[in-house]
């Protein structure tokens, strides 16, 4: 069994809220970010946190992310996101979910085989449109 059910890489607004929600629901969550300040801000509320460069395969291995871990890529930076996705696929991680900031980002992630991708701005716009249409 994998050490963590879910690993959230990139703990910005999106990633941190996601990780905290999952942790409160009792999942074993690992939060990873490159910034020490970001990680330190979460240390009161989350148990498993790491400061690491997620594009480095060896770091991911040392963090005990295995093929069975579900990994969520929360970073907005396209390069970081795609590099991390590449490293994860080299590690054989079967399920990667991601957040995309732009259409091209979405496209690139999709072609890399990322199974579930959300685009917050687009999705929020669509959901608000749906709400308006139902008035």
């Amino acid at each position: 069994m994998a050490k963590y059910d879910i690993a959230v890489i990139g703990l910005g607004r999106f990633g941190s809220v996601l990780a905290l929600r999952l942790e409160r629901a009792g999942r074993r969550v690992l939060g990873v970010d490159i910034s020490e300040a970001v990680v330190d801000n979460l240390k009161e509320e989350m148990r498993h946190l790491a400061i690491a460069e997620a594009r480095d395969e060896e770091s991911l291995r040392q963090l005990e992310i295995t093929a069975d871990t579900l990994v969520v890529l929360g970073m907005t930076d396209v390069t970081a996101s795609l590099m991390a996705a590449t490293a994860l696929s080299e590690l054989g991680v079967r399920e990667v979910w991601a957040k995309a900031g732009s259409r091209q980002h979405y496209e690139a992630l999709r072609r890399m085989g990322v199974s579930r991708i959300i685009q917050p701005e687009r999705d929020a716009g669509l959901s608000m449109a749906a709400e308006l249409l139902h008035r």
Partner: protein
Amino acid sequence: MTQDVTNRHLLNRLVANPSRTVMLGFAAVIALGTGALMTPLAAEPGESTDLLTALFTATSATCVTGLVTIDTASHWSTFGELVILAMIQIGGLGVMSAATLLVMVIGRRLTAPANVLTGAESRSIAHRNPGQVLVDVLKFTLLVEMVTAIVLSLRLRASYHADWGDALYSGLFHAVSAFNNAGFGLHDDSAVSWVDDPWMCLPLMASVMVGGLGFPVWWEMFRHWRHQFQRWTVHATITIWGSLVLWIGGTALFAAFEWRNDGTLGPLSTGGKILASAFQSVTARTAGFNSVDIDGVHQQTLLMLDALMFIGGGSAGTAGGIKIGTFALLGFVIWAEIRGEPTVRIFHRRLSPDNQRQALTVALLGVGLIVGATGVLLTVSPFRLDATLFEAISAFGTVGMSTGITPDLPPVGQLVLIALMFLGRLGPITLGAALALRNRPRRFEVPTERLLVG
């Protein structure tokens, strides 16, 4: 060129796991020595040696401690004594070369090759040719031992009515024993009969100190004298100053505590008292000769000797203990903390955090080991805390001074001392090397949190 490559290959294989190589080497020497000492040839006619005695003596000699369960002179034949002498020499050389090589390996791993950066010949011992360094260690050892042996032999011939053969043999034995900080003597009273003889005590002290400073310091002094470079390394500075401070401080305290004690310094002249104090202060770290009766000293003197024995001498020398460098380093850490400094500085250089943790580990594991061993000794023997603690520290620091309880300890107690001698001789070096060479770069870090301290 081919020769050089072969040498490097062999060295690489040996240093791939330096701790294991050194441990196995010592264990093998001890096993061989035990076997040799158990043969009837090694004991005086009419005496026989059991396994525990042979093992204890072999460990004590190889780990250059000097604790004995039986009297060296009356039990062992000349062959037995020569075996012991050989083990002392192998043990002393082994420790010096192994430690010097470990220093070099660590230095190379931790620093960029200096000649690559500057194109100049490196000042550091870490970038010497290992084979040449070993030859230097050997030459240095033989030179100091020869000089000491000659002085001692002349004095023994001139003043103690020994014939030439006896004088040369005894001089050589004591010179080797002193330089290697072993503390094995040929008299049942160690050096008590020479207590106020400067011609015997001063060469022994000098030899002990030279052996105890450690080869890297001597190498540096030699380079300095040849004007090949100007700046002293922090290690050499601290080792030399630390030795002086501990020596003079120990002398003063020993003299102050024992000045009027009829069992020790009392009967001597003023000069003799000072000489004996200085001798005791030097040999406590960690040669183990005693020119006064250790059983007769006050409790506070025992405590002071405990401290000196625990600290020991310089790194990569023949001395034992946690080493002056380790001790001084922790002192500087404490000083920096008291002053609220962000980092620990020694002589305009910053100490790395892993260096500090290393010193802390070596020192505290040493303390833990001694406390545990003393507890066992108290349980299995009828002796009191002061004597058992002294014996445990003496074994751990490979000092070999004794309050005289070692021969009367039960087998379990003697086995505890054997383990202490082995760990005390090899533990700090190999532990230090293992810690410094720990090669597992961690690619991630976790958030910081502070523990409440104090």
